[in-house]
């Protein structure tokens, strides 16, 4: 269980790392993949995935970027973080993207890449419905 989140109820395949997140610092928004060489998910495609990472890092750009990513069909299905920051919340609100954080466990350890999960932001609930 996490804190009450933002955005619609969604499901998808998880993409998980114990690394941090900023759309500007870490992503190639046109290719839909992680482009920061030092990121644990470097080279991985995030489009349509339930992205599970540790904490929001970096600047303010993600607040606008999530909205444009959703509009272009190049967004993750949901974003689950141990700690979001205001930028992630503001970006998810404008984009209508599912976001949940502040779980009662380390979410990057509780979910593995390839798990099929459902995310219910209103209840802060994430359910693994099929293991990898």
């Amino acid at each position: 269980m996490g804190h009450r989140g933002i955005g619609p109820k969604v499901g998808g395949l998880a993409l998980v790392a114990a690394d941090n997140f900023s759309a500007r610092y870490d992503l190639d928004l046109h290719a839909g993949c992680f482009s920061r060489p030092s990121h644990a998910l470097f080279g991985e495609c995030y489009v349509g995935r339930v992205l599970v990472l540790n904490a929001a890092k970096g600047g303010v750009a993600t607040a606008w970027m999530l909205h444009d990513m959703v509009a272009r069909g190049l967004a993750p299905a949901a974003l689950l973080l141990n700690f979001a920051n205001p930028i992630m919340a503001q970006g998810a609100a404008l984009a209508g993207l599912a976001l949940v954080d502040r779980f009662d466990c380390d979410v990057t350890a509780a979910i593995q890449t390839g798990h099929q999960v459902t995310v219910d932001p209103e209840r802060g609930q994430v359910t693994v419905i099929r293991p990898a």
Partner: protein
Amino acid sequence: MLKLNEHEKAMLAGAEGEPRRLAMEHILQVAGFFDAADLVEVSQAHIMADSEALGEAGVAFLERLAATPEDARRVRIPTVTDPRGADFKAYKRLHQDEAVVALERRMVTAFEALGVMLTNTCINYQTIMPSVLGEHLAFGDTGSVIYANSVQGARSNFEGGPSALAAALTGRTPRYGFHLDSHRRGTKLFRLADRPETLDDWGAAGAIIGKAMASYWEVPVIQGVEGAPTSDELKHFGAALASFGSTPLFHMIGVTPEAPGVAAVFDGPPPPAEAIGRADFAALHEAYRPSGDKLDVVVFAAPQLSLMELQSLAELLDGRRIHPDTVLLAATSPELKSASDRMGLTGKIEGAGGVLLEGVCFYQMHARELARANGWQRLMSNSAKLVNIIGGYGYEPVLASMAHCVDSAVAGRVLP
């Protein structure tokens, strides 16, 4: 449960037009996410406004707001902008795409229709209106937030573009995080064992502390700084700390206004201090050691340069010639570009072959496309913030002092 006053309820009900209704809905979502009890009035908003971040969808969103009646769309508090993505006077020199410039022009027109003042600067705390101890703000650049919160004692969360715009339209923001006394207490203690001597070392110190921050909610406290640093030193320190850490506030004992002593900023006994010194600054630089010495571009930006930094750069470049295989760029605010022109600093920088840009910042200029258009890969800068960001855009960044960067630009290669 969020408490709204009658005016706020009226805005939410649409009594003051669709833009303010949308803004209130946005504010309520963020307030719910962070359990805010009510809203706080803010005196200024600062909006992140580069077309790469907004994209076509963001610009179209602004244009929909701009098409509403004038009394519905005008911002309610003084509202300024962060750097944009293209310098309309200089973009052709950098081979920037006309499509990028066209998107920027649409964005500018929309912001103007909303009554936003296009200051195009991230150093608004140095150049536009310094904030005041206890002043509540909605600032939209991590560097401007951390400076206003820490050095000036103001109160702002990171307000990304949509949120800063909502604050501008309504004059308020959710009261949570760094608007509250309870979130402004220290959580980790550091001691600067050696005083950084150059701006890149101040940035390195900020980067090291930023890396140690577990989340947005951590507040680092720094002791051991004897005598006041300059505004530019704290600017580079804070910008790097905010970039590496997503950190909106630091306290520097004996320097920043809420930190007269260690006991004043911690609840209970302070944690043990972690010492940071010269070897740590060097190790941070070492992480950006280049794999070769070919030098494509030298960038002074992130944050934009103050008048004093422009003077230092002009003096370093005066009478010299940048190597033809290397491009040297510097970015400042429109006001300081004008001052730099008037004082002959621009002449010295451009006389040596450099390009002084106004109203932009390098990483906000569609940097991936810039690299492709100009064949750039290896980038040298004295900004720890910039080298942190720019790797994801396909660059190989190198961190060095301003003097070392200039010497390398003249030599056309990264000097050892």
